[in-house]
């Protein structure tokens, strides 16, 4: 177990360097001069451009730029934006907001998705099963922004139950609707995967044995059936946290949440490689750690899986 963990942690290093370079290179190769559009139809005065180019070493080659960026990064310096803001500040304020939103979304999709999946998996082809099938199909088919705008308009403007946008304090109660919107598609997938997985394992030998032993149904489902059926669901949930954080951009925009989505969009448009890479670096770490946690969870869920 210890050796496995070490090996996995070491694997993170090349993945980390590879992804950061790829991102840096991608933003760097976005066509256009970062200062060409900055000052509107008049264009920036040459002295302003000269000063910024020198200050941000924009005339160096990408290798030199990337190397100096990584050097600063390892010293904990994320750099500053063209507007003079510390990128570490941007990360420190926007990440917790996105994380909060993603965790609420994850909780909602886990509870509702899993609940619906178990119920329908156990009683297939009933009314409830059909209802869940149709409603999940509906959620998967609808793009996130449609669900977001409709809920915002109906609940926020028409009925006045919620505020159309989330306040700066990011209270939990305000995040339920945005979290539902963000997690809606994944929730539908989780319900369907859980349903199939449970339905399949329902016919497995060990379940039949457990029932034949005379175990109470509660225990058969809760311990034997559920644990084994959870593996695909946990895989989905675990990788979803990263996906939710990276994909929150639309939801954040609709509900006015100050998260990483707006920062990434802004910095791609303004060609601020340092900000994009800074934010993505943290996202990459989230993905890698979540993947590792999921793999470790497999062992806990299924006794047949052992790591060496």
């Amino acid at each position, binding site marked *: 177990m210890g050796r496995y963990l070490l090996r996995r942690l070491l694997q993170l290093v090349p993945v980390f360097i590879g992804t950061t370079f790829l991102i840096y290179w991608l933003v760097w190769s*976005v066509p256009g001069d970062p200062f060409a559009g900055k*000052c509107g*139809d008049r264009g920036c005065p040459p002295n302003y451009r*000269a000063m910024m180019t*020198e200050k941000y070493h924009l005339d160096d080659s990408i290798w030199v730029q990337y190397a100096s960026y990584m050097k600063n990064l390892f010293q904990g310096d994320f750099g500053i934006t063209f*507007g003079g803001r510390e990128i570490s500040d941007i990360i420190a304020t926007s990440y917790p907001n996105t994380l909060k939103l993603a965790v609420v979304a994850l909780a909602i999709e886990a509870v509702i998705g899993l609940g619906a999946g178990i119920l329908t998996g156990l009683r297939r082809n009933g009314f409830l099963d059909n209802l869940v099938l149709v409603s999940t199909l509906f959620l998967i088919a609808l793009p996130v922004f*449609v669900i977001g705008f409709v809920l915002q308009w109906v609940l926020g403007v028409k009925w006045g139950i919620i505020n159309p946008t989330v306040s700066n304090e990011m209270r939990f109660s305000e995040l339920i609707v945005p979290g539902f919107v963000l997690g809606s598609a994944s929730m539908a997938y989780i319900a369907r995967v859980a349903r199939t997985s449970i339905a399949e394992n329902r016919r497995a030998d060990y379940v039949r044995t457990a029932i034949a032993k005379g175990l109470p149904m509660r225990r058969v489902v809760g311990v034997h059936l559920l644990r084994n059926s959870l593996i695909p669901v946990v895989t989905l949930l675990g990788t979803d946290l990263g996906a939710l954080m990276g994909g929150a951009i639309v939801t954040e*925009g*609709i509900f006015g949440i100050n998260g990483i989505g*707006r920062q990434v969009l802004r910095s791609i448009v303004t060609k601020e490689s340092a900000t994009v890479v800074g934010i993505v670096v943290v996202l990459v770490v989230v993905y890698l750690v979540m993947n590792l946690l999921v793999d470790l969870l497999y062992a806990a869920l299924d006794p047949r899986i052992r790591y060496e």
Partner: protein
Amino acid sequence: MRVSKRASGALAVGAAFALVASGCSSGNNDGGDTGASKDGAIVIDGTQPENPLVPSNTTETGGGKIIDWVWSGLVEYPNNGGAPQNLLAESIDTSDSKVFKIKIKQNTKFHDGTTVKAESFVKAWNWAAYGPNGAQNASFFSDIQGFGDVYTEDPDGPDGPKKAPEPKAKEMSGLKVVDDWNFEVTLSAPTAVFPTKLGYSAFMPLPDAFFATTPAEFGKKPIGNGPVKLVAWQDDVEIKLTRFDDYSLRDKMKIKDVTVKIYQDDTAAYNDLLANNLDFQQQVPVSSLAGDKWKTDLGERAIQTTVPSTGIIAFPIYDKRFTNPKLRKAISLSIDRQAVTDKIFFGNRKPADSWANPLTPGAEPGNCTACKFDVAQAKQLLQEAGGFQGKLTLSYNADASHKEWMEAVAQQIKTNLGIDAVAVGVPTFAVFRANINNYKMTGMYRAGWQQDYPDVENWINPLYVTGGSSNDGKYSNPQVDALAKEASAAPSIEEAHKKFAEAVKLIDQDVPTIPIYFSGEQSGHSEKIKKLELTNVGELDITSVEL
């Protein structure tokens, strides 16, 4: 000119929403919020300022409007778009439009309690003009004598290996402090419009505190001299402003607190406005304009205004195919502007019929004869010009909502003249501008102009004079140059306007660009606000707000 930085990706999203929500009527809450104006507070929409708030380094609207509120200049532009009036200036005297004696009102205060003196202006202007400081608005000081000594150009452009030489001087020789309340400005050539320019944000005074710290530090919590002061700026969240109680000039605040809430998406702001969580939105989203939905939603709280900004399609005159004025005029005459503004903009923008925006002092309404819709004459001119060979591209930046109207214009040229015209989207504004700046356009392209200060001069010199700062198509007519020079140097503003009118007649013959529409603005306010006015550029005049 200031450029709007609102995330443009929202547009497509907003349009989809309109489809879903159409048919639903307004859903206003009847909030009974009628606090007294005296201690009243409002929340208005805004965008995150791109840079620290330093007046001479701000060229976008998000930071620009905060600066307009936090600072008061020598002159102000009346909300009706008319000629400027003295604000902080007691008097601005000149006999030859070259030397200006400026006397300021005594004992007005900055927000830190220090006094606004003549040197607060002189030092601020010298800082902004000094090349190595890299201020975005440095070119506004180019009229002043000695500008060339403090601002040096990079000999081979910003991409070349050479750097701009160190300027000879740190201060412009044309600026002299006489005493605490008087200073003298000497220009390198007579410029009648100079006093008009003084209301633009680049010319604001700066307190001593600015020079004791870095611009970046100062700009996070700027100290101005306007009717409101900045309390706190939380990045991407909000900017809190409050009434400056020691303000002694005319336009005092009637309410107390103003919070500028920073939105990423204008539809989110609009929904907050409908739910009475937001008190003012300067521009409602495009999705709410279709079918006048915003008017149904807001009722009497909907405000329609015109703003001094014109949508233009420009020619790259450096391209041989576009050198013939007859061809340019033919294309211009073939466009039915009324149809474009009615069908694409739902009548919220007006068809352009003059070269300068008609709200501007010195501008003559209807002086663009090339802006008429006359297919017969257009065909005739095209024939005289020898036709147009090949494909005519009309490019626009696709990251903002220009596709529809550019395609409509291309279609009209195609139908009315038989030219193979096609609208082409360039992915981002940055790429689009880079091509324009480097004179690499191979067809017509979208442009726009919003005036910096209300005078017809601002619509001629930068756009149509050889070497003008935004004459991107390289239009050049020696007669226009001569007239514009004479006009700029005229002893009085009236004389200047007469000369500019003559220059415009020549421009109207040459058709260096095609004005298409005059912009409009559609704003909305909450039930809480009982009275408000918009400034000449369509920003909220916060001193006029009453609850």
